[in-house]
């Protein structure tokens, strides 16, 4: 910046050259490095976002129909609802909240655990790593079918196992009851209907979808963390071992901090993916073509992307409303990510 420099004499050639070099460094050089990415991102990503914002101010079917200003947003707010299950948008936000809170920490923790295990010296490493990565590259449809079988109430493996130990069979993906009252009820603790819905937790069906999601994304997290682990200088580990650190201390005092840039990255990306995840939910809950939309049973798996989808494809003239919901999703995600940058990045150790 001009203020950094101490301008002694405007006529000084050296000063002018230094300024030019600094300008190059501070403006043209970054622009050069960034230009391809930024141009493409602006054209194919930012522009659709802005266009979406514009569309959200209209009633829109196949084409624009009527400019309604903030009407779609007003409708959204009205649909927030108070009380359990009332208001589609409110319900959807709650479901999305359960889903993210359930999936992201578990994925991070499990990925860290598994990545460390798969970094040790053991045999068959290639095979094991490939095995853990397979779910991520198997098509969601095929994976969903297999998981659907697992959860099948009539002939599924899970129910078979439950019944073998004398527990009652569950309806799993068809079960819209919240998990917490159910689990507490199983061990004999009562539940009052006056408790707020949020304490009831996700429905059993949503829990199943979350399990599927974690299973699906685990490979992704493991590979990313492995890449980070590989980049850690082994001499650091050696030194720690010489000092007599055991596995736990190694993991928490050494590996964790050194891995924190990668972990932070995984946190942000996992959160983004969980907020946007549509395929996993759709495949397990769409319940047949002619009628039941995704988000069944009883809308307890209706995450925000599924809601956006519903208004985009399954309601008339609702492209504008769907765009408004997309904006809500985007802003929510942006807020959460900003929070993560503010709070978590403090703890990240860069070199």
């Amino acid at each position: 910046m001009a203020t950094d420099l101490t301008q002694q004499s405007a006529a000084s050639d050296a000063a002018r050259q230094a300024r030019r070099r600094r300008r190059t460094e501070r403006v043209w050089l970054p622009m050069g490095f960034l230009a391809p990415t930024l141009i493409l991102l602006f054209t194919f990503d930012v522009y659709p976002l802005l266009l979406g914002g514009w569309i959200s101010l209209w009633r829109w079917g196949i084409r624009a129909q009527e400019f309604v200003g903030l009407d779609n947003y007003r409708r959204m707010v009205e649909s927030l609802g108070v009380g359990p299950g009332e208001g589609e948008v409110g319900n959807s936000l709650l479901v999305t909240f359960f889903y993210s809170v359930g999936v992201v920490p578990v994925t991070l923790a499990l990925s860290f655990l598994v990545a460390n295990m798969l970094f040790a010296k053991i045999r068959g490493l290639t095979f094991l790593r490939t095995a853990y990565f397979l779910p991520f590259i198997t098509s969601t449809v095929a994976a969903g079918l297999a998981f659907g079988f697992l959860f099948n109430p009539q002939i599924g493996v899970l129910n078979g196992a439950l019944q073998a130990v004398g527990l009652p069979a569950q309806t799993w993906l068809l079960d819209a009851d919240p998990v917490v009252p159910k689990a507490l009820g199983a061990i004999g603790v009562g539940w009052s209907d006056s408790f707020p819905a949020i304490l009831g937790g996700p429905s059993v069906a949503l829990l199943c979808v979350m399990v599927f999601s974690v299973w699906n994304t685990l490979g992704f997290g493991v590979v990313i963390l492995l890449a980070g682990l590989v980049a850690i200088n082994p001499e650091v580990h050696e030194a720690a071992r010489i000092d007599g650190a055991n596995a736990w201390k190694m993991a928490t005092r050494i590996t964790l901090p050194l891995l924190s840039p990668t972990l932070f990255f995984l946190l942000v990306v996992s959160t983004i993916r969980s907020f946007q995840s549509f395929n996993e939910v759709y495949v397990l809950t769409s319940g047949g073509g002619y009628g039941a939309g995704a988000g069944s049973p009883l809308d307890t798996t209706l995450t925000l992307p599924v809601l956006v989808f519903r208004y985009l494809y399954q309601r008339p003239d609702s492209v504008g409303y769907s765009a408004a919901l997309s904006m809500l999703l985007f802003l929510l995600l942006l807020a959460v990510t900003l929070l993560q940058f503010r709070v978590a990045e403090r703890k990240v150790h860069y070199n």
Partner: protein
Amino acid sequence: MVASRTNVDLDTETRRRPPVGGSASPLKRRTRRGRSPWRFMLYLVLIIGAAMMMFPFLWMLLASLKTFPEVNISPPTILPSDPQWSNYSEAWFQPASTFGRYFFNSFVVAAVGTALQVFTGITAAYAFAMLNFRFKNGLFLLVVATMMIPFEAKIVPNYVLIRQLPLLGGNDINGVGGSGLYDSYAGMILPGVASAFAVFLLRQAFMAVPRDFWDAVRVDGASHWTFLWRVLVPMSKPAIVTVVLFGFLARYNELLWPLIITQTESIRTVQLGLLLFSGEEGQRYNIMMAAAAFVILPAIILFVLVQRRFIEGLASFGVKG
């Protein structure tokens, strides 16, 4: 007797030998881990986990060898009673273009797209990691924010843009008259070239490199460009390989965009071919699983190659203080 070519030869301490100073230092002593119960537990947990992870994949393979009536039996039989290897050839030749053509197209799109993605990702990440300029943080957040844009929102605008690119595909300067890059490899590749994921990951990797390197090289008067490609990139191989892996997978598995932007069978990709086995009125489940099996194969091969590089240690550390 373990024939695995992974890092069995290296014991725990010498996980990776630094290229500088090859001889074993006295610090690298073999610790007798031997057959402790911990290792056994480790193996057990990992193998059980691996089985759970692989179960749908195995399911897919088994289903691909069954006949149509058998694949409809539930509870399902485990092993096919009469393995139909012909399912694979049927799946391969069934679509008009055959899967040979589809694979070629997928490779072109994925390879070119990934190469471009890596290039743009590296340069952009360098700017965010190493250079200082105004609005740096704001722009970076903007880049990350593009990952949050829901996919459906991008389809129609991108389609319109691709079709109306000026001076391409029969369009005049206003982008009217022809069809732009519709129904072409370029049209399939272009929107996905810039990847916030790549930029973010590489930025993290670049930022983790100690400042000393930069200072050391700078003293010799090297330019940013040289530093980036001669020093930083070789040091960040794991991250770059990761970007390549995920970038390739993302293009390879892409379905909706190629479906919308292509029309000619001869440039369609593998995922579209796979879609031909599940229609509105029912699926040929067994043939579909056969197709899915050979569709997933390149992804598996790529992963195996990539993760081998991880183990063999691409991160070469120079002299560290």
